[in-house]
């Protein structure tokens, strides 16, 4: 009972990115600060020199910063751009905003999560009461003209309206945040099967909503298993195969960020990245040496992590590593 369509989903990363990521696409990437950034896929986008991307991320760290630093991104909508203690604000992100090289639209954490949820639900917006009275509402990064010209961008950043169900004005005002429907979403996960059934272990962040909101989805995974073999525990799976277009087996695909239960973030590398990204010249050198100068993710890891690879592997009981130096 294996269909043709089924077999076409498992492919190499080069092919997946070539097939599904186009210049100018609205791209969404999963993960959260130091965890499960889809780094292998991000690096492949950089290698294929795909540019002018409109990036959606929730609270992303390394993946966002490298994409932005490489010049692949022209606009970004986001709640948070930081890499934990390693980079309280993402480094290339910070520089490119100050140098006016990317346009940013700022939302809150809850709002970005609601926006992906709205996209996955097929509704144009979801209501909340967060951010009333703040500059999240008052200051817009994308002006009306930009919004009119690109119909993939929401017609408005957000709308404040009266609560139509109000009794005694509780609550009185509602903030409507617009849905996001990316052209393509990249997520990295611990396990997937060759049909596309996807299992995220540990926290899912907003990966599930991002994927469900998206027109196409690329899943990279640390372990690729036989079609149907995840069906023994359906409650542990998040994405049905019909939500996924490409499944790519990439061991350590989130490196240098963490993948709960598989490996930890590579703290020494993230510390050194801070220096390697300190200026655009240095970052270009990093790109040349580490990304453009390597053929694929396994070569990148050899260069970036080398012998530390054993140390970042997770303790199967706790899901993180006690070996990696974090200070």
């Amino acid at each position, binding site marked *: 009972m294996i269909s043709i369509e089924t077999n076409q989903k498992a492919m190499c990363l080069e092919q997946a990115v070539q097939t599904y990521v186009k210049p100018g696409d609205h791209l969404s990437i999963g993960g959260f600060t130091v965890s499960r950034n889809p780094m292998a896929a991000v690096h492949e986008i950089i290698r294929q020199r795909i540019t002018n991307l409109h990036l959606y991320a929730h609270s992303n760290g390394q993946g966002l910063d490298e994409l932005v630093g490489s010049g692949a991104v022209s606009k970004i909508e986001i709640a948070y751009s930081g890499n934990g203690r390693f980079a309280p604000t993402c480094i290339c992100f910070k520089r490119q905003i100050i140098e006016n090289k990317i346009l940013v639209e700022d939302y809150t954490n809850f709002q970005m999560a609601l926006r992906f949820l709205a996209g996955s639900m097929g509704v144009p917006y979801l209501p909340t009461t*967060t951010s009333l009275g703040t500059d999240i509402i*008052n200051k817009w990064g994308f002006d009306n003209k930009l919004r009119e010209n690109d119909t993939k961008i929401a017609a408005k950043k957000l709308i404040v309206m009266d609560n139509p169900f109000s009794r005694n004005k509780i609550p009185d005002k509602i903030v409507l945040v617009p849905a996001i429907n990316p052209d393509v979403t990249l997520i990295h996960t611990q396990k997937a099967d060759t049909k596309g059934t996807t299992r995220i272990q540990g926290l899912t962040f907003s990966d599930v909503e991002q994927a469900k909101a998206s027109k196409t989805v690329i899943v990279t995974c640390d372990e690729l298993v036989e079609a149907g073999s995840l069906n023994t525990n359906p409650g542990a799976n998040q994405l049905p195969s019909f939500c996924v277009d490409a499944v790519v087996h990439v061991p350590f695909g989130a490196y240098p960020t963490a993948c709960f239960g598989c490996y930890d973030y590579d703290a020494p590398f993230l510390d050194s990245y801070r220096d390697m990204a300190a200026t655009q010249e240095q970052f270009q050198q990093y790109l040349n040496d580490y990304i453009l100068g390597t053929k694929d993710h396994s070569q990148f890891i050899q260069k970036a992590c080398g012998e530390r690879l054993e140390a970042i592997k997770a303790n199967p009981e706790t899901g993180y590593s006690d070996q990696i130096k974090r200070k």
Partner: protein
Amino acid sequence: MTYSSKEIMVLAAARQIKNKDIVFCGTGISMLAAVAAKHIYAPDCMIFFETGAIDSKLEKLPLAVSDSRVMYGAQVFCSLIDSFCFMQNRKTGSNIVGIIGAAQIDPFGNLNSTMIGNYQDTKARFPGSGGACDVASFVDTNIIFMKLEKRKFVKILDYMTSPGWLTGFDSRQKQGLMTRGPSAVVTDMGIMGFEKESKHMVLKEVYPGIDPETIQENVGFKIDISKATQTLPPNSRELKILREKTDPERLILTKGDI
């Protein structure tokens, strides 16, 4: 026993946590304060993160709210949306205490963690709201962490990321926010609160050895320092647990931003 300003700051915040509290915290020093509270004062409080880890075990100090160390041994993995829903819902909302930091604060406890300059012409950039605006919008008890510096305590924010008491008095309710503004600003020299009616910042406590005048000198606007009391110095038990159990690797105590 000697202690650093970072240590008394962490303990001053941690002392405010009760057993019944459900504590929401961000990265860095606010996370350290939450974990210290659980280790020292309120073993039954539950710590949760915007990433959806509820009642984390926290055997090792996480370096980010997405760190695998917030996942191990947690009670429940929720979604990001769930985390903020717990703040808003009828049952759990009122027990939630937020602990957040920022780059700038104004006299009414409004916060900037987004940028410096004009929004169309950025001079310095911070990570953005993350969950800060949400927790500041939704919870009744919000504790703010700030290093006391004139460039951080400013009359007018460059960008208001998170709502405090807005322009004071009942302006927060008038905007439609249904909860109270921040309750305390814990700094490395003392603790600020907000005047009952006007909601303007006032000095509540000074740490031992700090002159209230010095605090005023580091605040970019005038605050009432006349009613400040002195904070109890950390005792040896507090310091011992903080140093030996909460951050034995000294990941935050000696490194990282406030």
